[in-house]
Structures are given as structure tokens and as C-alpha cells.
């Protein structure tokens, strides 16, 4: 028994001894699913072999729990070296002054400021547009996915401007044939706001001005709401959310808003629909299922009215302010490792289509296009690069001229814009009344 105890104590002392020479850091990730954790752990194991003396422990943290966990860790003096989470989260942490903004700015410049997609970099820009509170790592882009074959048949332009979108929506809207022009969010849910924001940004309509004043009820926003309400007439009947993308997979819809996460579904639908041709099932009739859906689908990630605009979400890596220089160094080494092409591609392949690279030159690489699901090969290099190019133009209501306004996040959480959209598109409220109501609600949220 005593011998046992002795051995245990010996092991513990040795353990403490070796770790005294090593640097321990924590890497907090919002990728909490088991299979993703396994992949990241594999990457970290490789990193540790390559960098003797650095130990990285992987800690999964739910996105929503991140702020409270950070607060707790900060109080305990046990902050992680590196965190991975949404750009909004990083902006909020940046405001609280717990991030190592100086090092991150240096690293962005080291990796190459111009290599990052500009829209993505803007999402983490702070302090007059010169510093960064995170390094964009992956994210999704929203776009209008459309039937290229239908557009070609009618000789229509791609849906990348307001006029083109409206024209196409009218042309394909044939409710008597159970076919609809476009899918926009009209239920009072986040999806509606995501579609709407894309249009608002393309019209230069903002929630806040550069001084942080709420200016939601402005002529450009009103114009956007009017257009949105008009366009929603070419929606399938009744209030809709993203679930109605199934109508597209069934060939009943010409265009729909969606993130790059749809790429998977489209390709899978192709497989599913592949056997449901009229050769196998003559009773289906011609054109019920499109066996070549992926080939016939294109995406317009950028919409232009007065300016080109994209919409999406950025997940960033960020350095937390540490006292220990060793820990700082270790975290920076880890970042460099994560941006190496092979590591980067392995990481992104955890969710092909959903996780897109934030730096140029990755999407075109043969290794990237050769994902384990064989997804990208179905789309081909040109389409993939076209899709990801949307990252250059993405924006949000939170960032105005390099300044971030966290109040925009609060407004988003209260779903004021979705309820405004529901009011005009489904309840028939006039855009003027709805936008006035919305601004009043927003003001109340800010005053709270």
C-alpha cells in the first residue's frame, strides 16, 4: 500500500516537474460536437509533437456560455490562451478589454492583411479600423441560390441586383402551377432578418451612424423594406422560413436565400432525386425531380443596389490577454500552425460548405477541393471560388466604418426586424408604420 502511494507521489512530482518546464495553454472552441472535437484534438496532438514543451488542452464551450465562462475564468485568473468563436463574441470581449489586441493586429499583418477576405476582416476590426480583436478563421456566406437552367431558358440575368431579382421573381412566379419566384423569410424569426440585412447593406442602409446614433428609420431603410415587402409577394403562400428551401429541392422554387450550409443538402438531394427520374418512375412525368440539381444551381453571394454587399457569419480565433510571455508565445505559435494550409484544410473539412476559408488561396487548392464527402468535386473549383468570394463583401449592422456597436447585437436578439417584416408582408401593415414601430422598439432596447 505504502509502496503504491510512493509511486503515485513520485509520478505526481515528476509530472509537476516536467510541466514546470512546459507551457500549458487552453484552447476554447465552440465546435462542441464529438467528431469535431476529435479532429481538433488530432491537430493539437500534431502541434504538440512539433512544439516540444507546449501543452494545449482543448475545452469545448457552447457559444452562449462563452461570456459567463470567460468571466469565471477571468475571476479565477485562469484565462485560456486561445479562443474560437463568433466575431460578435470577440467584439464584445474586445470591448471588455480582456483581449490581446496588439498581438492579434501584429499577427493579422504577419499572415498578410490582404490575404484575408476584406469583408471578413472588417467583422473583427476595432479602434478606427486599424486593429483587430480576432483573426477570421472560418465562416459561412449567404447568397441567393438559383436555377441557372431556368434563368438561361428565359434569358434572365443572374439575381445579383435588385432589378434582376424582382424581374426573375415575377417571371418564375406561377402559383397556378405550384411554382414560386423566390423564398424570403417572412416569419418573425432570425432567418427573415438575415435576408433583409443583405438587401439593406446593398442599399447602404444602416441601423447606426458612425457616432452610434440609432438611425434605423431612414429613407434607405424604408426603401429596402418597401422592396422586400414587394418581393415577398413572389414567395410561396403564407409566412415562410428557411424550411421552405425544400420547395427548391423539389423544383418548385426558382431562387432562395441560404447560407453555404445548403451545399451539402443540394448534393444529397441530387443523390436522392437521381433515382426518381421519369425513366424509373414514368408516372412522375417530366421535370418533377431534377436529377442534376447541383449542376443547375448557381449562387449569387453579392447583391448590389447602391453598393455590392454580402452577408455571412465569421468565426474567429482570438488571443486572450495573458501575463505570461511564454503563454502568449505558445498561443501565437498555435495560431500560425492553424493557418498552415494542411492544418487549415483539415479543420475546414469538418463541415464542408459550412466552414469556408477566410484567407485567399485555400479554396483553390487541390487538397481543399478533395473533401472527404466528395462535396466540392460536385461543384467544381470555379463555383467554390465564386461562392467564397462573397466573403470579400460581407457586412453587418454591428460594424459602421470600422466601429462596432454592441447594441446592434441586443436589437438582433429581440427580433425587432423580423417582427417588422412579418407585419408588412403578412399582416399588411404599411412599411412606414412598421419601420416607425421598429425604431421605437429599438430605442427602448437601447435605453434599457
Amino acid at each position: 500500500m505504502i509502496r503504491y502511494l510512493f509511486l503515485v507521489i513520485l509520478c505526481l512530482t515528476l509530472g509537476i516537474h516536467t510541466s514546470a518546464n512546459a507551457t500549458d495553454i487552453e484552447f476554447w472552441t465552440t465546435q462542441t460536437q464529438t467528431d469535431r472535437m476529435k479532429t481538433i484534438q488530432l491537430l493539437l496532438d500534431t502541434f504538440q509533437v512539433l512544439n516540444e514543451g507546449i501543452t494545449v488542452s482543448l475545452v469545448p464551450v457552447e457559444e452562449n456560455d462563452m461570456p459567463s465562462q470567460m468571466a469565471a475564468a477571468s475571476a479565477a485568473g485562469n484565462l485560456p490562451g486561445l479562443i474560437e468563436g463568433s466575431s460578435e463574441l470577440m467584439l464584445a470581449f474586445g470591448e471588455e478589454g480582456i483581449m490581446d489586441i496588439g498581438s492579434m493586429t501584429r499577427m493579422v499583418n504577419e499572415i498578410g492583411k490582404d490575404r484575408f477576405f476584406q469583408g471578413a476582416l472588417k467583422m473583427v476590426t476595432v479602434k478606427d479600423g486599424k486593429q483587430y480583436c480576432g483573426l477570421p478563421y472560418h465562416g459561412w456566406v449567404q447568397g441567393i441560390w438559383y436555377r441557372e437552367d431556368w434563368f438561361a431558358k428565359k434569358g434572365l440575368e443572374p439575381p445579383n441586383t435588385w432589378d434582376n431579382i424582382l424581374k426573375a421573381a415575377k417571371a418564375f412566379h406561377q402559383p397556378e402551377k405550384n411554382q414560386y419566384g423566390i423564398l424570403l423569410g417572412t416569419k418573425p424569426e432570425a432567418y427573415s432578418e438575415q435576408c433583409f440585412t443583405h438587401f439593406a447593406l446593398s442599399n447602404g442602409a444602416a441601423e447606426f451612424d458612425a457616432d452610434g446614433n440609432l438611425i434605423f428609420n431612414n429613407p434607405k431603410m424604408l426603401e429596402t423594406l418597401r422592396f422586400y415587402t414587394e418581393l415577398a409577394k413572389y414567395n410561396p403562400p403564407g409566412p415562410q422560413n428557411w424550411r421552405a428551401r425544400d420547395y427548391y429541392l423539389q423544383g418548385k422554387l426558382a431562387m432562395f436565400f441560404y447560407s453555404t450550409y445548403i451545399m451539402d443538402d443540394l448534393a444529397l438531394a441530387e443523390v436522392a432525386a437521381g433515382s426518381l427520374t421519369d425513366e424509373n418512375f414514368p408516372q412522375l412525368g417530366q421535370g418533377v425531380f431534377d436529377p442534376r440539381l447541383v449542376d443547375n444551381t448557381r449562387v449569387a453571394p453579392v447583391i448590389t443596389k447602391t453598393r455590392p454587399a454580402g452577408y455571412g457569419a465569421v468565426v474567429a480565433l482570438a488571443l486572450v490577454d495573458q501575463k505570461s510571455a511564454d503563454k502568449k508565445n505558445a498561443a501565437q505559435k498555435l495560431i500560425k500552425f492553424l493557418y498552415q494550409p494542411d492544418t487549415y484544410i483539415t479543420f475546414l473539412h469538418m463541415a464542408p460548405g459550412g466552414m469556408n476559408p477566410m484567407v485567399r488561396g485555400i479554396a483553390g487548392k487541390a487538397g481543399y477541393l478533395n473533401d472527404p464527402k466528395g462535396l466540392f468535386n460536385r461543384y467544381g473549383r470555379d463555383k467554390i471560388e465564386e461562392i467564397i468570394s462573397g466573403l470579400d463583401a460581407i457586412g453587418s449592422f454591428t460594424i459602421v466604418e470600422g466601429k462596432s456597436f454592441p447594441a446592434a447585437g441586443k436589437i438582433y436578439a429581440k427580433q425587432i426586424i423580423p417582427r417588422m417584416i412579418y407585419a408588412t408582408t403578412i399582416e399588411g401593415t404599411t412599411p412606414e408604420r412598421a419601420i416607425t414601430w421598429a425604431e421605437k422598439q429599438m430605442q427602448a432596447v437601447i435605453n434599457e
Partner: protein
Amino acid sequence: MDLSIAQRESRLGWRFIAPSVGVIGLLIIYPILYNIYLSFFDVKLTGDKLFIGLANYQRLLSDAAFYGAAITTVLYLVGTVVGSTIIGLMVALLMNMTFPFRNLVRTLILLPYFAPVISVVFGWQFIFDPVNGIYNHLVVDVLKISSSRHSLIGNPNSALGVVILFDIWKHFPLSYMLIISKLQSINKDQYEAAAMDGCGPIGRFVHVTLPELYFVLGTLMLLRMIWNLNKFEDVFLLAPNVETLPIFTYYAAFTGIIDQGFAASISVVQFGVLALLIYFYVKKVLKW
């Protein structure tokens, strides 16, 4: 001090029920009182409370949306209570007759009542899906009654109808069960006597069956009224655009600008209306 036996018994009785009184007080009376208390305050999210007197009630009673919700609630109550009672009564009368496989049919009828709300709601949403649903397929493609497809659940004007229909379908088995159990206990002699007095089938129903069922029907409608005035999940899951009072309260309390004091005042009003309703109902209809 000497207590009479009756006094001692009553003391003992109080001791026996004291634990349940305590538990009920803690779980029911306290929240109700606290809710009434909250309704006089402007409650901040931080937990700070500012006494504002009757301001919440003034705001509520001058809010057009509140009256809209109240009207919706009345329509919902009348539609569901009357509907499910009549259907339940009709089915019970039918099931009281003898026919082959009666036991099997009796069991099957109970299914909607036992099925979990969430799965049934998804089923209904699929039936009424504007593009792929069987309802639109029947009405537009097969029967050609309408030339355009509609989202009955999505359209705020028709959603209430669907929600009422849903509730009737889901809850008529309960009415049926209570009614049939009473039906089976009605003495056959009464029907024979009525028949001798010259009553036909309708006369027998009016003069024998209905009076016998009076209190069952009365109790049933009272219970359904109480339940449905507070019904949240069925309505919210199927059609969140139908604003009955509980849903109106939910939106005020938990979405947009969270206003707990205001939401508390809605609950108090709703509680008051319900209490009054029950009082008159019990006095006049059930004659207790």
C-alpha cells in the same frame, strides 16, 4: 381545558391537512400573490423594481392589441368548448349503440387525445403546408374548389379556425369518455317509460338523456373552459400568429422588450376574468 370530541376531531383534521395546505400555499397561493404584487411594478431585467401603481393596468386597458387578444380568446373558447362537447356527445351516443368491432373503434377514438402534442402538430402543419400539403392538393388540384393555394395556418385570418379545429379534434375524446361513462349508467327503464309516454328517439334524447347528462356536460364545459383559457402549447406550437391571451402574455413577458410587470398585470386580469366566470358558472349552471 376540555374540548368536545367534535372540536378535537376538527383540530386533528387541520393537522392532517396542514402539510398539503403548506405545499399548495407555497406552490400556488404564493406565486399568485407574488404575481399580483409584481403587476404594480416596473420590473427591470436586473431585478430592480419601481412601484408604479396602476400604470400597468392603465396601459393594458388602453392597448388595442389586448382587446384583440381578448376577442380571439373568446372565439377560441366558444369554438373549442362547444365544438368538442358536441362532437364528444355525438360520438358517445354512437358508441353507446352495439355494432361489430365496437371495442376496437372505442379504443381508436381515444388516439388523438393520447398522441403527444408536438408530433401531432407537425402532422397538422404538413397537412396544411401551402405547397406540398394534402389539404391544398385536394382543394386546388383534385376538387378544384379554389384556384389558388393558401397557407391556412400562416394566414392570420384563417389560423384561428385551424387552431379551433385542432383543439376539437384533439380533445373531443375526453368529452366522449366522460359522457359515455354517464350514458352507460342511465337506467333503461327510463327510456322504456318515455317510449310508453309516446316519445320518439328525439323525445327520448331530450327528456331522458340530456337531463341525465346535464351535470356531466356542465362540469366538462367548465373544465375545458378553464383549461383552454390558459391553453398555451397547442396554440403556440401550431400557429404562433394566433394571439390568445396566454400567447399575448408570453410575447409581452419573454420577447421584444421584456416587461415582467406588464405581463404580470395581464395574468392578473386573466385570472380575475377566469375566477368570475367560474363563480357564475358554478352558481348558475352547476347550481352548487
